[in-house]
């Protein structure tokens, strides 16, 4: 039964020392995610959303408890093993896009494939496919500075999905976008979720994102206070 979970956390605790006291960023969080979920962590700032994504994304390690991602215990992974897990299975989308400014759109999307040592032909096929998914194939030679905010985030999405990871972690992906671009991005991500069965986990407090979620997990002070699942899609405006 456990094997059907892509991600499973058990009594996950993350603490930070603050002066003489200890801050609980995550406090006994028990969550699991199946393949193909379109889920979101919602809650106010400081509730532990980003910390949860960092640990699941193997960028950070838990203080206590256990986190299993794709069958690997995060707390037991070396730096190299964690990098390999991210490289093969996890894509990240950030609030500020974080495209590499000196490289073209094509090269930004190609970068994760360079780390996988794929042949130039394979890389080209995958990059163009990813750019077609996000409808930016015609901007392949552009530099990030020449793109709008919405286009930049679509490049970031293409970069995250180009290696077809099992999990995409998106931290406030619409925070720097206007409403129209936000809906475009969310539509794209939803399509990819359906087409590729990729699990999307968002950290957000943007109502526009929340409306797209099929599972909404509410975090308050590092604790899960609600975990709501919707039958098909939490259709726009029907939260």
């Amino acid at each position: 039964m456990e094997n059907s979970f892509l991600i499973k956390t058990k009594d996950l605790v993350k603490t930070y020392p603050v002066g003489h006291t200890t801050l609980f960023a995550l406090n006994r969080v028990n969550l699991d995610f199946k393949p193909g979920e379109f889920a979101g962590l919602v809650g106010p700032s400081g509730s532990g959303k980003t910390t949860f994504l960092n640990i699941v994304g193997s960028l950070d390690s838990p203080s206590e408890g256990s986190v299993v991602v794709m069958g690997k215990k995060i707390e037991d992974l070396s730096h190299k093993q964690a990098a390999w897990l991210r490289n093969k299975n996890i894509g990240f989308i950030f609030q500020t896009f974080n495209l590499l400014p000196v490289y073209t759109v094509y090269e930004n999307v190609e970068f994760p494939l360079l780390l996988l040592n794929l042949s130039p032909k394979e890389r080209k096929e995958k990059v163009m496919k990813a750019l077609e998914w996000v409808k930016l194939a015609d901007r392949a030679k552009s530099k990030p500075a020449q793109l709008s905010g919405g286009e930049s985030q679509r490049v970031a999405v293409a970069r995250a999905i180009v290696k077809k990871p099992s999990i995409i972690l998106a931290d406030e992906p619409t925070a720097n976008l206007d409403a129209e671009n936000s809906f475009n991005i969310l539509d794209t991500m939803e399509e990819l979720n359906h087409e590729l069965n990729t699990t999307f986990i968002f950290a957000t407090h943007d109502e526009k994102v929340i409306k797209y979620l099929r599972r909404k997990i509410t975090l308050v002070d590092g604790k899960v206070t609600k975990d709501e699942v919707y039958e098909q899609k939490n259709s726009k405006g029907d939260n």
Partner: protein
Amino acid sequence: MIKFIFKGIIRDRSRFLFPVLTITFGVALSVLGYCYFSGVMTSWIQTSAKFESGHLKIMSRAYAEIADQVPNDLAFIGVKNLTADLKKDFPELIFVNRIRFGGLFDVPDENGETKAQGPVMGLAVDLLSEESPEREMLNLENAVVRGRLPEKHGEMLISDEFARRLNVQLGQSATLIGSTMYGNMATANFTVVGTLRFGIAAMDRGTMVADIADIQSALDMEDAAGEILVFFNDYVYRKEEAGIIADTFNAKYSDENDEFSPVMNSLSSQGGMADTMGMVDSMMGVMVFSFIAVMSIVLWNAGLVGSLRRYGEIGVRLAMGESKGHLYRSMITESLMIGAVGSIIGTALGLAFSYYLQVKGINIGSMMQNASMMINDVIRAKVTPFSFVIGFIPGLLATFLGTSISGIGIYKRQTSQLIKELEV
């Protein structure tokens, strides 16, 4: 991946320009410094060899011990036979007999009374034999300022500066007052037929050059010579080979118990030559090391500033699954590419300046007025095959060290901390 790194360097001027300029500047200075020191060393060795030490020098053991006092009373007698034997034993070498001497140079007036006098340093060489290599070796034809070279016995040359100071005219007779090798007073008259300028301050102050047979006669040194100078056929000094020849000679001819037995010393083992050559080698090492240290610190700081500026990129690359080790190595690869470019440009610039100095030279004569060092007034840089690679040592090593140190921050930072800073 290399192509990816290369594109990043080319397109990001701030990543490229400052480090390349730093390396170019440092490498150019290193190459120039190396070529200049090489030129100084070569000039010094060649000049010392020609006038004073030879590539090897044979003296009597007693003479060798106080050679700087030019003790002609301890000179060899029977040098003709000795030189003939040596030419048979070492046919690949050139042997020349020399007598160095000191004395008083007396210039009389038309009545035979002393008009002017001055101390003179003398050099007796074989000027008149047809087979003598001395004229060419000492470059005498080109050194003549006024007059001509001696053509018969009793003629001599004096340094031009000395002639002007004593107001000596060409064709005028002058008297050398010195001492014989047996300690008696010696006087001999010579006709001044030419004046010389070697471009070596130590030689141009007050020197007379005369045929060795005339000086042997004047100083009662029949078939004697203070020193036998030995040269390689191609006139290029080779330290190791010289050492082997000296050992071979000394094993055959030298006797520790006989102070008049001959002893052969190589150029680099004579007087302070070994110390000075060692000092120059050390200075060159210190110079290269200094450039490496200074450039490493500058590039380390540049690397730190660059790393801060590229925190976003580093964070994204880690998030995308690049390992810290791979990222660290790629930054070192990047810096080595920059180092190679800077080294190539710096080497080209350094060589261009060095070549200019090799052709034009720098006249240091005014600084050498009272120097006794045998070195040309005009110092020229020397471009050698090693000059083409010497700059790559500080160029590549400094970039490697600078990036290695600044890149340690990648390992020390928490990965999640890098990602947090992406959100700024």
